[in-house]
């Protein structure tokens, strides 16, 4: 009797393990519109209202913890921020004076128009779910196909780029964050600097890595990165519109034994604490 139990237990375990391996194998080999992904989207679409309701119900608890967290951090940062505000005010005055002198203020409006963001329709959404591991960085938002959202739409906050839409159901969407291991964003240093590819660093969600494509120009600490938003003559275009702020270079480690220079970037957006995001819909990014 006991041996029969053991045999049955082992058989169930083997069946489950084989099922897992088959799921992994099919998921990796099939296209995004394959049957497994369709089933996954179907289940997600059915469960989304429940998840959305649960997320709304749990919001007060999250807000309470955020409040404690922010209060704790604010105590330490208060003095530091006061110093930074004074410093930035001085810099701002200097920059405004310089911009006026160079007629830069007028050019700024043209630059915003030229970035192409005027052609996108922003859709605000709330984060209702998040992945639990640094190996897979994504969030689920409460806006989907019915709101005009498509796959590959760019997602931003008021601070900068956070990711792109990777899956859409009727009322929700999944956003793969720029810190995810599969993410890659073509970027350039603002002001005509070198271009490169920004990717996430697994295990360190507060940091991005810049791989330089055009290494002729130097990248230095404090450089600000924006999306490159390129379009080739052959019609190939970046998934992200141009000139969306990404982050700031915080450390450059020169290439010695490494094959390439290592450039560490701190994202402008606080990717660890996302509550409201904006999806740029309607662009030519499909």
């Amino acid at each position, binding site marked *: 009797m006991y041996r029969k139990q053991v045999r049955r237990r082992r058989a*169930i375990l083997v069946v*489950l393990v084989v099922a897992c391996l*088959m799921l992994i194998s099919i998921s990796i080999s099939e296209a995004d519109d394959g049957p497994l992904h369709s089933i996954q989207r179907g289940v997600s679409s059915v469960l989304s209202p429940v998840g959305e309701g649960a997320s709304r119900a749990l919001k007060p608890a999250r807000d309470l913890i955020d409040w404690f967290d922010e209060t704790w951090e604010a105590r330490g940062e208060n003095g530091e921020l006061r110093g930074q505000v004074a410093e930035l005010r001085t810099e701002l005055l200097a920059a405004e004076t310089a911009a006026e002198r160079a007629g830069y203020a007028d050019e700024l409006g043209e630059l915003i128009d030229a970035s192409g963001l005027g052609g996108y329709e922003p859709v605000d959404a709330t984060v209702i*779910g998040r992945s*639990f*591991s640094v190996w897979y960085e994504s969030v689920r938002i409460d806006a989907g196909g019915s709101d005009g959202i498509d796959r590959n739409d760019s997602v931003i906050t008021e601070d900068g780029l956070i990711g792109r839409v990777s899956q859409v159901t009727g009322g929700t969407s999944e956003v793969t964050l720029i810190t*995810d291991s599969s993410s890659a964003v073509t970027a350039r240093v603002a002001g005509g600097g070198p271009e490169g590819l920004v990717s996430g660093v697994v295990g360190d969600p507060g940091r991005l890595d810049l791989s330089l494509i055009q290494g002729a120009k130097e990248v230095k600490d404090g450089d600000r990165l924006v999306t490159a938003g390129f379009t080739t003559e052959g019609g190939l275009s970046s998934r992200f519109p141009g000139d969306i702020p990404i982050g700031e270079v915080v450390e450059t480690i020169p290439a010695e034994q490494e094959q390439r220079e290592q450039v560490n970037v701190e994202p402008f957006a606080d990717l660890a604490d996302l509550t409201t995001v904006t999806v740029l819909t309607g662009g030519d990014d499909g």
Partner: protein
Amino acid sequence: MIVTPLILVRLALIVLAAVLLQVGFFSQVPLLGSVANLLPVVVVALGLLGGAVSGAVAGFATGLLVDAMIGGTPGVASLALMAAGYLAGRWREGYDIVSSLVPPLLTGALTALAALIYAALSLTLGIEAPVSVLALREVVVQGLLGVLLAIPVFPLVRRIVRPALVDDPGHSRAGAGAGDRAPGRGTFGMMRGQGSH
């Protein structure tokens, strides 16, 4: 554990509630550079109370559900959680829970193991981005937070599935001990129930 249709509904609700709490709350509250992971904690509790098969099946179902909710590669989370649930059940079938510290400590260890398996599988499937050593922080932090989460979660899960437990101390304290090592029967088998805890 004797699994009746009613108990099956309770188990499904436990798994669903755990996934909703994880995705809607715990994953959105950063702690010590990572987040708490409730899923292995619940799966380990079910394994400790129901045995190896219950733990493995709960891990498999929980993994599939969370992948559907948040869009991970189907099967990866299931494998990691299945390992945690199965090993918890094997522990329960081989040893008595002689101290109230055993469930939280075992949960912490198996939560860390699940995070490690998830990381290993992710690496095996191919990661193009650079990997920081800080990725190991997730294993440690989730393990430590697993210990803390298990303190309220294990008794709560036990209370919910109590009617299915063969030797629940709330019903018969005399039943706890060597006698509850007998192999069982039932839908998933009548496994060893909660012992002297």
